[in-house]
């Protein structure tokens, strides 16, 4: 196998496929990416068995063939070459990378050992606006858990709800729900956040084909294809967690609230919550930490309801307010021990529910 391509193009396809390669994989072969050259096309595949990224590049083919090259090393090697044309060649168990003078040689990995990746089934895929979809995902992903002990909570749940796509994530302390009215398709499954986080940088584009089915989730664009094994198990029944009515509602500027949370967070820690004292003039945020000090400030707003003090973890609160993409943010509360719900002042498509900290 031997090809020639522009350095920057080569770095791009290698590094994007490399995003699926785990840094500490137990199998040495998974530290490599599969490179296949047929005709004028070079395809690069990286996988950690859970998430697979395939990218493609049109190259000047000198000799067709396939090889597995060490992902991180080869990508960095190409990146460090002088700008211009780069030749990538595999022969007799060695990979050779040359361009503008320098010559790298690496041990080739075994093509036979590289896992067989099936071609993703795109027959059910629907087209979505990649930017809007990515934005919707970002809004809910913050609420997902990173704790591998509870795999169910490390994914974003896709479901088809009343003629639109709904995305849901929870780490059991907060819950984010985002409806995507523009997408009316039967996408259903629990997609690992780890895969979704790589989506934008690996194959994300303004036009995206999406299929989420029984075994895998597939995201495809002109830049390549990302496939993720869906998480097995039943997603918690989140509907029962969302209160049906809210007697008390705060409306406040998102920007002002974010700035206030940011200042309070300087003093707050994971176990030191921010207290919100809600009253008709708005909300007073305060934090106080034993042996350190505190911060208090008032954010003007509109509050209708019973005066109360409710406390939230600063990070959870920040994530939620941040995810609301409107100028005005609404916080609905019931009482200091029941969840609060954040949403935009106008939109109906997003809500972020968070459990308070009991004082």
């Amino acid at each position, binding site marked *: 196998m031997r090809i020639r391509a522009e350095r920057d193009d080569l770095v791009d396809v290698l590094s994007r496929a490399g995003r699926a390669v785990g840094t500490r994989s137990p199998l040495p072969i998974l530290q490599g990416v599969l490179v296949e050259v047929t005709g004028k096309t070079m395809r690069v595949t990286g996988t950690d068995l859970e998430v697979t990224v395939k990218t493609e590049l049109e190259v000047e083919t000198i000799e067709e063939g396939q090889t597995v090259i060490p992902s991180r090393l080869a990508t960095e090697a190409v990146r460090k070459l002088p700008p211009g044309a780069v030749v990538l060649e595999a022969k007799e168990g060695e990979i050779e990378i040359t361009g503008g003078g320098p010559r790298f040689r690496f041990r080739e990995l075994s093509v036979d050992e590289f896992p067989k990746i099936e071609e993703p089934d795109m027959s059910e895929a629907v087209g979505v606006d990649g930017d809007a979809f990515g934005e919707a995902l970002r809004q809910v992903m913050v609420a997902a858990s990173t704790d591998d002990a509870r795999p169910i909570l490390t994914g974003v749940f896709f479901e088809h709800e009343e003629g639109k796509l709904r995305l849901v994530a929870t780490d059991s302390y907060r819950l984010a729900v985002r409806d995507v009215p523009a997408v009316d398709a039967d996408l259903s499954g629990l997609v690992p956040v780890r895969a979704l986080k790589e989506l934008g940088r690996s194959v994300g584009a303004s036009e995206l084909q999406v299929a989420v089915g029984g075994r895998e989730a597939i995201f495809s664009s002109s830049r390549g294809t990302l496939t993720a094994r869906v998480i097995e198990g039943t997603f918690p029944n989140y509907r029962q967690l969302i209160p049906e009515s809210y007697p008390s509602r705060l409306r406040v500027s998102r920007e002002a609230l974010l700035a206030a949370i940011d200042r309070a967070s300087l003093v707050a820690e994971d176990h030191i919550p921010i207290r919100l004292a809600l009253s008709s003039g708005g909300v007073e945020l*305060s*934090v106080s930490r034993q042996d350190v*000090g505190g911060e*208090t400030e008032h954010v003007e707003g509109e509050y209708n309801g019973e005066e109360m*003090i409710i406390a939230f973890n600063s990070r959870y609160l920040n994530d939620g307010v941040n995810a609301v993409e409107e100028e005005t943010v609404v916080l609905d509360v019931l009482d200091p021990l029941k969840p609060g719900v954040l949403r935009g002042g106008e939109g109906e498509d997003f809500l972020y529910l968070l459990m308070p900290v*009991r004082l």
Partner: protein
Amino acid sequence: MVEIGLEFAGKAAGKIVPSSPGPPGSEHPLGGSIIGGRTGPGQGRYRVGRLDGAVEWRGDDRIRPQVGQPGGGSSRLSSADRAQAKAIEIGVYHVTGVVDFAMSDEVQRAEHGVRVYRRPWARLVGGYRRVMGGFSEHIAHLDMDAFFVEVERRRRPDLIGKAVLVGGAGNRGVVASASYEARRRGVRSGMPMIQARRLVPHGVVVPPDHSAYREASDRVFEILDGFTPSVERVSVDEAFIDIGGLRLHYESPRACGEKMRAAIRAELSLPSSVGIATTRLVAKMASRDAKPDGILVIEAGTELHYLHPKHVEALWGVGQATRARIEELGIETVGDILTFPRDTLVRRVGEAVGAMLWSMAHGGEAGMAAETATTRSISVEQTYETDLTTEDSMERELLAHADKLSARLRHARYVASTITLKVRYPDFTTVSRTHTFAAPVSSSAEIFDIARRLLGRTAADHRGVRLLGIGGDGLVGTDEPRQLALGDSVWEEMDEAVEKIRDRFGGSAVGRARLADFDEQNGGMSEPV
């Protein structure tokens, strides 16, 4: 119970002892007279209320509202405030960890003179003792004598006078408690039953009935609570009691200790031994020397005299490894430690243990304070008569453990940030797996869920299990702020309901469906934790 009204200056609610209620001799607003004023910066001595006692405290005499709280009417106090509140003693009652008087039930109890928070007390003892004067041997260590055996003897008089071994009778059985008749022939608790039976061939082996011991233990502690709320439960049959507050009621520490022993014997027909000293370390050693059925007071000033002839093994925290190392140095008795400079000791036996030994030999209690000042973990574990080999049996055990751990956490008023699973394989190799939660937990459902996952990360499924344990670390008081979880309340309410039933009708009144008919089949021996 003596009624007393007490509050602190600066608090919003109601009747309060002003921080400076008046000059000595004047009437206190609550009734009693003031017998002294400030005795120094942040110290004072007042007599207040309807109780003919005295109030003493150290620290700033105001309780400040916490920084940044609207109105200051908060239920949360800074550590300094809590410490100060704890250092206030009213007659026989220590009012400690006092909180917002207007709101919580702790407060109500405080108003009735009952101490609220027990655990942090130990940390205050040093400062407190200096103020107190008199009654300087104020730490009592009460240890029930051959507790399990004596509980059995109450219902089986035929066991009296015989060598009795309480413990599992099977191959894996271990002596949980031995009567003094058996101990005289070399039987020790923790010894394999087979070995013990060789020492006392005519001994009577009684299978343990932990619910009976637990019940008797609760009664013992009720009696001790009647003396003073400053009781720290060390184990089922052992407690440290700060008797400093009882000095107005007993002429000497010895009289007080005798009264406790007599009360337990009168009400429960159980023998106990008491050691009294100025420090917990010495008190604990003294109670051991007082056994059986005795009392030993080590007078203030004679601690070192008492300690130094003791074999080093008697010191807290000296296990086999340390013993071997210090024996190399030619150290046998506690007194021998004094012949070494601290640096040498630290160099030879390690920083932690060396410093601890040196400190203890000089009458300190560095090692103990760390052990007992705060509870660091709570755990439940069990060794099984026959190895567990099926997933179902292991899960059932984990469920039972999770239930117990949850109840213990709740009783101790903690939630755990970290859950650790301990597994001992049949070949005695032991592994543990740990999980730390984003927010602490105490519900049995959450503990079980994580324990089961942790079990999946061990080789238990193909190697089998000899011992299973679940522990909670990173304990956070339930009165600390706590992140709530979605759907949390369902489990918590259930756990609480179950516990109420158990409190009222006994431990076996309600249980997990999955564990039904299980306890009887299980011949395992509980290991004390």
